[in-house]
């Protein structure tokens, strides 16, 4: 029996948030996508992908934190930290794309990973499903950009007013 009156546990709300990219798809669409998905696990410090690698997988972060870093002068410069509920590697949906960042696990990380080429092919075969998925991904990408802008503000602060 469905219990709709009880208080919904936090973990269920968090779970729904983390899986929101998939949670808007209808059952027929999910049945097409889920066989393409696999769970992946990374330990702290492990590299999910390096900057400039061929972008192969879209990862939905289920748990843990990942640092996105750019290499400069042989050093990894942190650009952004992403958390459970974020998606990384969405450039894998564009054929021949390379990763723009290095992704490094800051903790134990669990993801649901889709091979980008297979995901794109599935979306091409079912444009309605592709559109539903892309809408959710676009929402995530927009949030990521907003978060990146906020981090830039944190790093550089407000510019000093020009003295005349």
């Amino acid at each position: 029996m469905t219990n709709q009156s009880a208080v919904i546990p936090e973990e269920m709300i968090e779970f729904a948030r983390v899986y929101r990219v998939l949670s808007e798809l209808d059952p027929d669409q999910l049945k097409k996508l889920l066989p393409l998905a696999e769970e992946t696990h990374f330990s702290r410090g492990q590299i999910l992908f390096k900057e400039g690698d061929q972008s192969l997988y879209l990862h939905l972060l289920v748990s843990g934190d990942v640092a996105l870093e750019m290499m400069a002068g042989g050093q990894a410069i942190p650009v952004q930290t992403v958390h459970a509920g974020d998606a990384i590697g969405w450039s894998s949906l564009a054929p021949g794309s390379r990763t723009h960042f290095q992704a490094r696990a800051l903790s134990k990380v669990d993801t649901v990973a889709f091979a980008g080429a297979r995901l794109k092919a599935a979306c091409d075969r079912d444009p309605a499903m592709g559109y539903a998925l892309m809408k959710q991904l676009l929402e995530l990408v927009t949030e990521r950009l907003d978060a990146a802008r906020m981090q830039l503000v944190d790093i550089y602060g407000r510019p000093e007013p020009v003295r005349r």
Partner: protein
Amino acid sequence: MSVELPGRILEIQVVRNNRLGLVQFGDTRRPIFLDLVADAKVGDWVTVHVGFATGKVSEPEALAAYAELGATQETAEGDLQLEEAGPAMRRRVKPR
């Protein structure tokens, strides 16, 4: 590929537009989407892939899967146990 052990539904809630179940796998519980198995109810055993229930299995099938892996499954009420007894597994299932 992840191993797809069945889990038993302990509770069902609706979050946004999705039916979510709290599902027990061995000694851990985690939320699972139930939208693909529309008739799933509390007490049912379901197979799961990447956070989504993909089908129902009978209790004997579920127990056999755990026995095969030598796992111990205990429900929240403690009414179901698999115990390792020497090299063979024996089952003790409380009649419903």
